[in-house]
C-alpha cells in the first residue's frame, strides 16, 4: 500500500466503511437493534467451535454480541458485567465466558439459550482484580484468567467457580493464548517490569504448563514495554507477540529519526529457533500500537492489527523466518526490514483491536473499536471484503467519542509514529520515564501519570507548567511530541472532553461499604495527624493532608519535598493526585521510588516529604495501607 494513501484512507475511515459495506449483503448491517444509544467499542471476539457464531465483546456497552457469522447478523445482545474485555468459549461450545474487568467477575453464558433469544449470563464467577484475558483448557474444566492489577494468572475451576491457584505473571498481565495441543498457556503483560530507574524496559512471556499448572518458563523480552496479544500456530512451533519498543532512555527529540517508539513482533518457538524481534514499521511510516495477532492455520501468514494506524498488516511467515535467519544481529530497529516480509497493509476501521479467525481459516474478523464495526478480511487474498456494522446506537458522535478517536489514532504524529494511547495504554499510563525535550536533554526526566478522574487536579506536568488540559494536550503535544500541526481547535476540545470523561476505576483496596480495615484506619490517622509521636506539632507543610488535600488528594500546588535530583531544573513539583495510587508504581516524578514504601524509607531523609521519620515500620506499613484505599 502507498503510505500516503494509507494515511488518507485512515482519515476518511467513515467513508471507507460505507464503501466496504457494498461488498457484503445488506443484512450484514445490524439486524438486532441496540437497545440504547451507547457506543459499543467492540474489542475482542471468539468463534463458536462450529464457526457458526461469532461472539463480540463490547467494552463500552457492557455487552456480548452474538453474530451469525455467515450472515454477519447480530442475533443477540447479552448484558454482561462492567467493562468486559475478553470472551472465550468452552471446547464443546456450550459455555461462553466473558471477563468483566471493572466488576472483577466472569459472566458465564449458556450457549444453548442463545438461539432462543433469551440468553443471559447464567452465573458470575468472582475473580481477582481486573480480569482481562482468559482461555479455557482443552478439558473444559479450568479457566485461565489474566488479572491486570494483580499481575498474575488465576486458575479457576469452572464447575465450582473456585480459584484453584494463582501464578505470578508480568506487570499488568492481560492477554492469554493456549497452544493447539492444550499443553501450554502463554501470557503477556502491558506494563514493563519494575526495574531500577532509567534501565532498559523488561518484559516477559509467561509460559504455563497446563499439566502441572505451574509456570514452566519466562521468555525474557528486553527493551519491550507494552505487550498485547500472543498467538500460537496450529502445530505449536511458532508463537507471535504484538508489542512496542519505547525509546525512552534517550531524549524525546528524535521523532523525525523514528526514535520514539518501535512497533514490532516477537516470534518464538521451534520455527524461530529462539526469540526474534521483528519490526513492523517502515522507513517513513509507522504502524503504531500493534495489538491483535493471529496465525493462519497453514502458518503461511501472520495478521496483526495496528490499532493506532487503522491497518492490519499481513506478514509472509516463510519470508519472515528466512529473513530473520539470514540476519546475524538483531534487526528490530531496522525500519527497512519489514519490506522483506510484509505482504499487505489492509486498511480497516478506526482503532482495530482484537482479531478472530474463522475455524476454516478463510476469514479474519477485526474489531474496529472506535467505529463499532467489524472488518472482514479474506485471508487468502489479503483484502478486506466487508464491514459489519454492529449497530452502535449513537447516531451523533459525541465530543468525548470524537476525542477518544483522536486519542487512539497516531495519524497526527509525524509519520504516524504514535498516539496518546502509546504512552497511556488503555487510557492509563505506561510505567516508563521519559526525557522530554523542552527542558533540555537529560533534564526533568519524568514518568507519566494515570489519567483517570483528572478534573480538579490542574495544573498539569510535574512542574505544574500547564495550567489546563488544553495546554497540556495542544501546543505541548504539537511541539514536543508529534512534531506536527496536530489538532484543530475543535479536535483539541474533543480530546480534552474525552480525557476529562475518564472515570476512576474501582479501588480494589477499599471495601465496597467504605469501611476501612484496622490497619487502614491507623494509616488514616497518620495521614491526617498534626502532632508527631513525641507530642511535637508537625509543621503544616509537613503534614500529609496539607499538600494532598481535597477530594483528589492534591492541593494543586507545587512543593519542594526533597525529591529533586541533579537532573531536575527545579526541586518544586506539582502535588500529584492520589486516586488509585496503588496501581501506578514506580513512584515520584522520576520513578526513582520502586514502591510506596521507598518514598519514605529512601527518599525522605529529612522529613520534607511529610513527617515520617518518627514512624515505626509497622506504622509506615499502616500509612501505605491507607494510601492504597484512596
Amino acid at each position, binding site marked *: 500500500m502507498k503510505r500516503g494513501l494509507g494515511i488518507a484512507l485512515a482519515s476518511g475511515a467513515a467513508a471507507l466503511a460505507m464503501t466496504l459495506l457494498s461488498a457484503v449483503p445488506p443484512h450484514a448491517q445490524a439486524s438486532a437493534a441496540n437497545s440504547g444509544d451507547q457506543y459499543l467499542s467492540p474489542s475482542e471476539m471468539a468463534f463458536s467451535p462450529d464457526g457458526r457464531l461469532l461472539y463480540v465483546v463490547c467494552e463500552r456497552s457492557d455487552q456480548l454480541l452474538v453474530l451469525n457469522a455467515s450472515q454477519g447478523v447480530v442475533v443477540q445482545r447479552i448484558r454482561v458485567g462492567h467493562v468486559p474485555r475478553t470472551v472465550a468459549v468452552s471446547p464443546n461450545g456450550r459455555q461462553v465466558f466473558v471477563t468483566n474487568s471493572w466488576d472483577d467477575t466472569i459472566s458465564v453464558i449458556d450457549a444453548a439459550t442463545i438461539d432462543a433469544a433469551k440468553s443471559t449470563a447464567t452465573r458470575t464467577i468472582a475473580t*481477582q482484580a481486573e480480569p482481562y484475558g482468559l482461555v479455557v483448557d482443552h478439558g473444559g474444566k479450568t479457566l485461565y484468567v489474566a488479572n491486570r492489577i*494483580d499481575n498474575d494468572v488465576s486458575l479457576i475451576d469452572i464447575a465450582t467457580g473456585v480459584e484453584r*491457584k*494463582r*501464578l*505470578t505473571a508480568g506487570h499488568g498481565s492481560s492477554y492469554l493464548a493456549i497452544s493447539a495441543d492444550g499443553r501450554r498457556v502463554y501470557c503477556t503483560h502491558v506494563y514493563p517490569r519494575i526495574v531500577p530507574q532509567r534501565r532498559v524496559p523488561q518484559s*516477559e512471556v*509467561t*509460559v504455563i504448563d497446563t499439566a*502441572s499448572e*505451574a*509456570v*514452566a*518458563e*519466562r521468555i525474557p523480552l528486553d527493551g519491550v514495554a507494552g505487550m498485547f496479544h500472543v498467538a500460537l500456530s496450529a502445530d505449536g512451533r511458532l508463537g507471535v507477540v504484538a508489542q512496542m519498543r519505547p525509546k525512552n532512555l534517550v531524549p524525546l527529540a528524535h521523532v523525525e529519526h523514528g526514535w520514539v517508539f518501535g512497533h514490532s513482533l516477537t516470534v518464538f518457538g521451534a520455527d524461530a529457533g529462539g526469540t526474534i524481534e521483528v519490526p513492523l514499521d517502515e522507513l517513513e511510516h509507522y504502524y503504531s500500537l500493534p495489538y491483535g495477532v493471529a496465525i493462519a492455520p497453514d502458518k503461511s501468514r501472520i495478521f496483526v492489527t495496528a490499532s493506532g494506524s487503522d491497518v492490519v498488516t499481513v506478514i509472509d511467515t516463510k519470508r519472515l523466518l528466512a529473513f530473520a535467519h539470514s540476519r546475524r544481529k538483531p534487526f528490530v530497529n531496522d525500519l527497512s526490514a519489514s519490506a522483506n516480509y510484509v505482504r499487505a497493509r489492509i486498511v480497516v476501521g478506526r482503532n482495530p483491536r482484537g482479531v478472530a479467525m474463522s475455524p476454516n481459516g478463510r476469514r479474519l474478523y477485526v474489531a474496529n473499536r472506535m467505529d463499532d464495526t467489524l472488518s472482514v478480511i479474506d485471508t487468502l487474498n489479503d483484502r478486506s471484503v466487508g464491514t459489519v456494522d454492529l449497530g452502535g446506537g449513537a447516531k451523533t458522535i459525541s465530543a468525548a467519542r470524537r476525542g477518544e478517536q483522536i486519542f487512539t489514532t497516531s495519524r497526527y504524529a509525524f509519520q504516524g509514529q504514535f498516539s496518546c494511547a502509546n504512552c497511556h495504554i488503555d487510557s492509563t499510563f505506561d510505567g516508563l520515564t521519559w526525557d522530554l525535550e523542552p527542558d533540555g536533554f537529560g533534564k526533568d526526566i519524568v514518568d507519566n501519570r494515570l489519567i483517570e478522574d483528572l478534573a480538579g487536579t490542574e495544573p498539569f506536568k510535574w512542574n505544574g507548567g500547564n495550567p489546563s488540559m488544553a495546554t497540556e494536550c495542544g501546543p505541548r503535544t504539537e511541539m514536543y511530541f508529534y512534531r506536527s500541526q496536530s489538532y484543530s481547535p475543535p479536535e483539541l476540545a474533543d480530546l480534552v472532553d474525552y480525557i476529562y470523561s475518564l472515570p476512576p476505576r474501582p479501588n480494589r*483496596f477499599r471495601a465496597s461499604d467504605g469501611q476501612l480495615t484496622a*490497619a487502614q484506619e491507623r494509616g488514616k490517622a497518620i495521614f491526617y495527624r498534626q502532632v508527631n509521636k513525641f507530642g511535637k506539632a508537625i509543621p503544616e507543610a509537613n503534614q500529609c493532608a496539607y499538600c494532598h488535600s481535597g477530594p483528589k488528594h492534591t492541593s494543586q500546588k507545587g512543593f519542594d519535598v526533597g525529591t529533586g535530583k541533579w537532573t531536575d531544573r527545579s526541586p518544586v513539583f506539582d502535588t500529584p493526585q492520589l486516586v488509585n495510587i*496503588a496501581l501506578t508504581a514506580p513512584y515520584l516524578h522520576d520513578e526513582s521510588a*520502586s*514502591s510506596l*514504601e*521507598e518514598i519514605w*524509607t*529512601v527518599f525522605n531523609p529529612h522529613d520534607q516529604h511529610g513527617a515520617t521519620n518518627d514512624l*515505626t*515500620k*509497622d506504622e*509506615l*506499613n499502616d500509612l*501505605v*495501607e491507607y494510601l*492504597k484505599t484512596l
Partner: protein
Amino acid sequence: MKLRILMVLVFMTLLLLGAGKSATVKPAGAGHEAEAVTASMPRFRWENFTTANGLPDNHVFAVLVDGDRVWAGTENGLAVFEGGRWKVFTPKDGLAHRAVLALALDKSTGDLWVGTMGGLNHVSAGRIDTYTQLNSGLSNDVVYGVGVQGDYVWTATAAGASRLNTRTGEWSLYNERNTPMAEIWTYAVSVGADKVYFAVWGSGVLEYTIATGRWKDYTDPDGENELVLFKDQGLIHKITSSVSYVDNTLWAATYFGDSHYDGRSWHNFLTKDSGLPSNFTNQVRGLDARRAWFCTDRGLAYYDGVNWAVYRPALDTGKPEMYIRETSGKITPVPVETAPAHNYMLAIDFQGNDVWVATAKGLSHGIRQK
C-alpha cells in the same frame, strides 16, 4: 541483649570452626533386642556436595527438596541441583543477598520463597523478585525463616515476624507491640493448617492460631538459663532455634535441649537422658507426632519415638560413624563406610526415603540403604 550477643558469637564460632570434640562412642554389648533395634533404624550411603563438585559454598544454611530438584541455601548464593548439575543464583541474578538462610516452597505454584541476610526473594520459574525493609513492608532484611500458608508468606526476621498477603500486598508485622514477644529475634517459622509457630531467640515459642488471629507464648517454666528445674513441664529453654509443627504436634529445638508438645504434655530431650548427640540443635523436623530429625552441632539424630540413631563423621577421627541409642541407654555402633560432610548440621529435608542435610562443610545426600 548481652546474652543474645554472646549466643551469636558462640553460634558463628561453631559454624566457622566446626564442632568441638567429644568422646568416641563406645560399643555396648550386642543382643537380639539390640539387633532388632539396629535393623529398624534407617541407614544411608552418604554422597556429599561441596565447592569441589559444584556447590557455590560449603557453608550450607538451608536445604529444600522439590520433587527431583534440590535447593540449597549457602553463604554464597542459592543453588539448585537438577539433572545432575548445580545451577547457582547470586545477587547478580537478583538475589537479595549472597547468604541464603531459609527456603520455603509454595506447593500450589511451585514458587520458592527465599530468606537471605539482605531481604526476601520470590523465585518463580527463574524470575527473582526482592522484598526488603526499604522497598516493602518486610520488618527486617535478615530473614531467618520462611513459611507459606495459602496466600500468606510468613517470615521470621531479626526484627520480629512479618506476614505478606500475596493477594493484596499487605504486610502485617508482629513484634513486641502486638504479641507476647519479649525479644523480637525470630529465628524460624513452621506453618500448619491451623497454626503458625515461631522460634524466638530469647522468647521461647510463639503460637499463632489462624482462625482467631491470636498469639500465645510458650516459654521455659523455670526461667533458668543454665538449669532445667522443671523437666517435661514446658519448653526446655527460651533460646529457641527451630520449630516444626506436624500432626498437631510441636517439636521445638533450642541451644540447650529440645522439646515435644502434643497439646497436653511436654517432653524434653537432653543429651543426658536421650540419644541427642548435643543439646545444641540448629533445626528439628518432625515427621509426625512421634518421629523427628535433629540437626545438632555434633551430628544428625533420628528419633523414632523410642530409640535414636546418630549419623556423623566421628568427632575425634572424622571417620564415618553411626550408632543406635536405645531407650535403655544402650549404645550400639553400626558399621558404615560413609558419613555426612560434617558433624555441624544446620538443616534437613526429605526426598522419598532419602534425606538431604545442610552442614557447615557441604550438602549431604543420604541415600537410604535399609
